[in-house]
């Protein structure tokens, strides 16, 4: 099965019953599969007029208490940014699939890239936090889509599946479990206000029509949800909570593989380049290079870097000019060497090995 189809199947298995999107290469198969699947399940598929409306529609869908998703690629992701900020500020659980292609602008529609990784974290204005996952197999396109829904609900945030054209269009064997774990958002407790946080900083969710008065606004709001946009302390407290509810849970959210934690030369990768690193490690059995594969990229699981106690250098192959390498360098004293590959072709394993040998 193709990665994009596996993503749609993961969404359906996770109980997603609302999809609004605008087709764009190389993500369109996600929408096509959702269009085939949802009507038969009593769900709703809408092809919207553009990506601004798509993002707005899934926010509305989520507030009716239905798991909601859209899928796009870079140009559409840019258009979604305004409403992604709205989703973050209104604590709307929703899932956005980004099958990344070469940018900037319309760039390379049919070629892979990972150029939207910082945009996913910082693309909308203001301070907020989100969750971003990165699959490197077709199986993970399924598994991490399910996980994205659970995390979106758990933390009431937009959760992104930051895939790429290589994995989205790759076909390989997938196994679907009989059922997947679906963890619904916690509901609001009696006596609590709709934006009043619990101990984990996440307020209980009260979708429209479920018996509570709730007002949703993109303006700075109090715990009732009413605008209160001129109180500096209230604004600071709210924004800090929205960031902290995700950032302080980064170890709960972290999903990763570690190989050879005692290594001195360590590769760090996510998405398609992980496949190149794994092949490189197989091709060089005499070397004991380390590898950290990140399935969670945001919030960045910085504590994992400390597990490589002997690391002298971190090598970071990405299909961008070093977006996550820059994040890694913030957390370690050792040199972090980006290994960029632009244009859509995946890193060749022998090139990665040559890069590693240069640091021996």
């Amino acid at each position, binding site marked *: 099965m193709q990665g994009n189809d596996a993503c749609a199947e993961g969404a359906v298995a996770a109980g997603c019953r609302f999809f609004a999107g605008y087709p764009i*290469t190389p993500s369109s198969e996600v929408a096509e599969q959702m269009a085939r699947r949802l009507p038969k399940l009593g769900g709703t598929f809408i092809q919207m007029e553009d990506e601004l409306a798509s993002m707005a529609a899934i926010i509305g869908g989520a507030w009716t208490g239905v798991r909601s998703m859209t899928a796009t690629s870079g140009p559409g992701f840019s258009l979604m940014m305004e409403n992604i900020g709205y989703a973050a500020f209104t604590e709307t659980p929703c899932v956005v699939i980004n099958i990344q292609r070469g940018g900037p602008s319309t760039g390379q*529609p*049919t070629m892979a890239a990972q150029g939207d990784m910082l945009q996913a974290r910082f693309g909308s204005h203001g301070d907020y936090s989100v969750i971003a996952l990165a699959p490197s197999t077709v199986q993970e396109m399924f598994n991490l889509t399910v996980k994205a829904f659970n995390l979106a609900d758990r933390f009431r945030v937009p959760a992104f599946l930051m895939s790429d054209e*290589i994995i989205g269009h790759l*076909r*390989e*064997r997938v196994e679907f479990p009989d059922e997947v774990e679906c963890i619904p958002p916690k509901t609001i407790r009696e006596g609590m206000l709709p934006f009043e946080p619990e101990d984990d900083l996440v307020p209980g969710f009260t979708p429209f029509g479920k018996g509570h008065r709730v007002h949703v606004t993109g303006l700075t709001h109090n715990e009732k949800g009413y605008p209160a946009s001129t109180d500096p302390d209230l604004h600071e407290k709210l924004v800090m909570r929205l960031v902290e509810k995700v950032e302080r849970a980064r170890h709960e959210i972290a999903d990763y593989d570690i190989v050879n934690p005692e290594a001195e030369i360590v590769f760090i990768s996510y998405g*398609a380049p992980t496949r190149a690193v*794994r092949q490189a490690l197989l091709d060089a059995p005499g070397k004991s290079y380390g590898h950290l594969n990140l399935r969670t990229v945001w919030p960045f699981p910085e504590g994992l870097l400390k597990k490589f106690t002997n690391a002298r250098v971190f090598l970071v192959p990405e299909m961008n000019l070093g977006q996550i390498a820059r994040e890694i360098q913030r957390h370690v004293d050792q040199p972090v060497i980006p290994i960029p590959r632009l244009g859509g072709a995946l890193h060749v394993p022998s090139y990665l090995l040559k890069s590693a040998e240069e640091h021996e």
Partner: protein
Amino acid sequence: MKYEVLFSGFGGQGIILSAVILGRAAAMYDGKYAVQSQSYGPEARGGASSSTVIISSDPIQYPKVLQPNLYVIMSEAGFLKFGAAAPESALMLVDSGLVQSRPRCRFIEIPATMQAKEVLGKPIVANIVMLGALVSATGMVSFEAMERAVLDSVPKGTEELNIRALNLGRDILQKGGDA
């Protein structure tokens, strides 16, 4: 044994479908690992099209084909773009009615499009003819697995035609191709 197969032709010949069917035969019906990917541009029918599939008895990490050892070439443009650089150790099946050039490596001429038209009346199944020949030439997947994968992948009502195309490819190959 690891097979890295490159299919090339022009858009509309079913080049991508060929790789999907081969990968499905290996992964679903022959107990092997397979990954399939494709390169394509914005153009639709008529443009140069290629797709690759890797088949192995071991899990496959790197998803892209770096050096194919099997080629299935169904257009002259596809030959010039991908086939001309084939290493001498490779094996190439060429649709001999559509590809004029011949490689340095070992090759087998399969007049797939011509035979599909003459014998079956449907040149559209030439890609399936090529698959029948490829499987018979290499044994990379069992013929039964290939039959099941073809039946999974073709439109309803065309099953018999496609199985006949698969058998035709095998028969051409067993007669020594057109070499």
